[in-house]
């Protein structure tokens, strides 16, 4: 099912006018039609910057240094805001972390969904409104006709996120980027939202790029996973492979640091931690950026950044990959 709908090649993003301060240090990946790709990493690893780049929403303080982003084979004009307006929502939808911040408090939620439809399609108002009600129904909101006229503050966090999902899917995009869509929500609501996303994916065939730091979510919702660390791709693999035989020490560290009641607890503490902190983006280190925190690091790691190794669907960038399987 090698049918990449979205292809990112060697994407480098730097602080504007400072090509030495790299936020993304050359990241390549693809998303196949209809699949869920999870992008995992900790704050500052570049996962949100990647999604903003795809949407052409990079903040003014940064710019693309090199690389291409292709959607259905053609390059996205991410620096051209007018051209990108036609892509956003119509072809690539986006769900943000804070549903309250993603909606305008001064307009009823139905109007905000309507706005998306009217931006992209010429429809009589009644038909567009019928579509709004239909969308709100599809995302399982109760009494959509009444709810459409509610202002955001009247809705709960989970309901707001459903509205945002309705907006993102209003024009049947082929790709949905969900940036930490459940981080602000309670765990039972998180499950409802993830279930909704998976069901909508099954019904519409939309590909989902799920950006998250929650490995539990990844385990149960993603087909493939890309792990990022400090602006680099550390590892990429089908979900099962990544969990059962992670090769990159950072992936292993993340899995070990995640609380898991079904596994025996680690020695010397309650959780196995990764010592140290993420290096600053301005740090001009030439080697592997994980080396200062890595137990296997050698001179080679500190001197040269590891070239990616590809083994089938599994890829990783490490000089000394772990080989033992995890149970």
């Amino acid at each position: 099912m090698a049918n990449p709908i979205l292809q990112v090649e060697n994407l480098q993003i730097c602080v504007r006018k400072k090509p030495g301060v790299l936020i993304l240090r050359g990241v390549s990946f693809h998303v196949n039609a209809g699949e869920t790709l999870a992008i995992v990493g900790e704050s500052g690893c570049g996962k949100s910057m990647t999604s903003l780049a795809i949407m052409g929403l990079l903040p003014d303080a940064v710019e693309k240094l090199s690389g291409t982003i292709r959607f259905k084979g053609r390059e996205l004009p991410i620096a051209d805001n007018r051209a990108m307006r036609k892509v956003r929502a119509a072809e690539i939808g986006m769900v943000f972390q804070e549903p309250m911040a993603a909606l305008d408090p001064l307009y009823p939620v139905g109007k905000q969904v309507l706005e998306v439809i009217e931006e992209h399609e010429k429809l009589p108002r009644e038909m567009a409104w019928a579509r709004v009600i239909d969308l709100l129904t599809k995302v399982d909101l109760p009494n959509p006709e009444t709810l459409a006229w509610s202002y955001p503050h009247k809705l709960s966090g989970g309901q707001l996120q459903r509205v945002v999902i309705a907006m993102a899917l209003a024009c049947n995009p082929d790709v949905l980027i969900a940036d930490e869509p459940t981080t602000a929500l309670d765990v039972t609501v998180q499950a409802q939202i993830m279930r909704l996303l998976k069901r909508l994916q099954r019904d519409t065939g939309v590909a989902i790029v799920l950006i998250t730091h929650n490995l539990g979510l990844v385990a149960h919702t993603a087909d493939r996973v890309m792990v990022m660390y400090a602006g680099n791709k550390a590892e990429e693999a089908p979900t099962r492979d990544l969990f059962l035989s992670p090769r990159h020490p950072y992936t292993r560290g993340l899995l070990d640091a995640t609380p898991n009641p079904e596994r025996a607890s680690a020695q010397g503490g309650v959780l196995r931690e990764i010592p140290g902190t993420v290096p600053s983006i301005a740090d001009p280190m030439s080697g592997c950026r994980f080396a200062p925190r890595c137990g296997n690091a050698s001179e080679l790691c500190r001197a040269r950044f590891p070239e990616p190794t590809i083994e089938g669907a599994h890829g990783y960038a490490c000089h000394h990959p772990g080989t033992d399987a995890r149970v």
Partner: protein
Amino acid sequence: MSNTLLRIDDLHVSFRVGKTMIHPVRGISLHLDRGETLALVGESGCGKTTLARTILGLQAPSSGRIAYDGNDIAGLDRFGLKRFRPHIQCVFQDPFSSLNPRKRVEQLIREPLDIHQIGERSTRLKRAHEMMERVGLPTDWGRRFPHEFSGGQRQRIGIARALVMQPDLLICDEPVSALDVSIQAQIINLLWELKRDMGLSYLFISHDLMLVETFADRVAMMYQGEIVEIGPARQVWSNPQHEFTRRMIDAIPVPDVTRPPPPAFRIDAK
């Protein structure tokens, strides 16, 4: 000296928001032994933070008893509270908003000692530095300001500031939920070591049942202002009794691909 450090009996808290009265805490009773970690788990709005604030004397209870080491603290006045506060300290959720950005780190950590006039000026600074070392911060960073630290380091500052008073009980209100997974593990392990070395007791407030299962001795599940289930952490996780606990566990994605997704994640679930 009894083994029970904190005992709460039928505590109610209510206050007015606009024109309506709300009752975030509805008749809570619990006890915490010396050296124990009790986790208070619930979803947002269940009243767990209000309960913590009431124990700290930041919110007045409308009825009920809070006994600390046998003494009732629910009805204390300003002066009584000040004498009592050194015994219970708190670590807050957000390491960004809980530190004054205009004060140097060593000042921030020393401040509780200044307020309570504990020791001489010079020894206070020395104690602040000892505490920094204890939580894993280099003492020569004492002259820096909070913005120069990462989230995890700031949470270490918050812990140092709480522990410089040598409290018996530390209330941790979601101390790691703003942190990344690898840093979260560092802070949890630090809290665990400090407890072991300093003989602390923790009231650990969290929404993350999976995290507290690895860390707490007992877990109290809180739902709509009441404790609906309380017991040994392992037991609550593996054999939940209350409907709310079961519903929460069914929704928690355990990071394990060899087991089926949790029931709440299945597309065809209702």
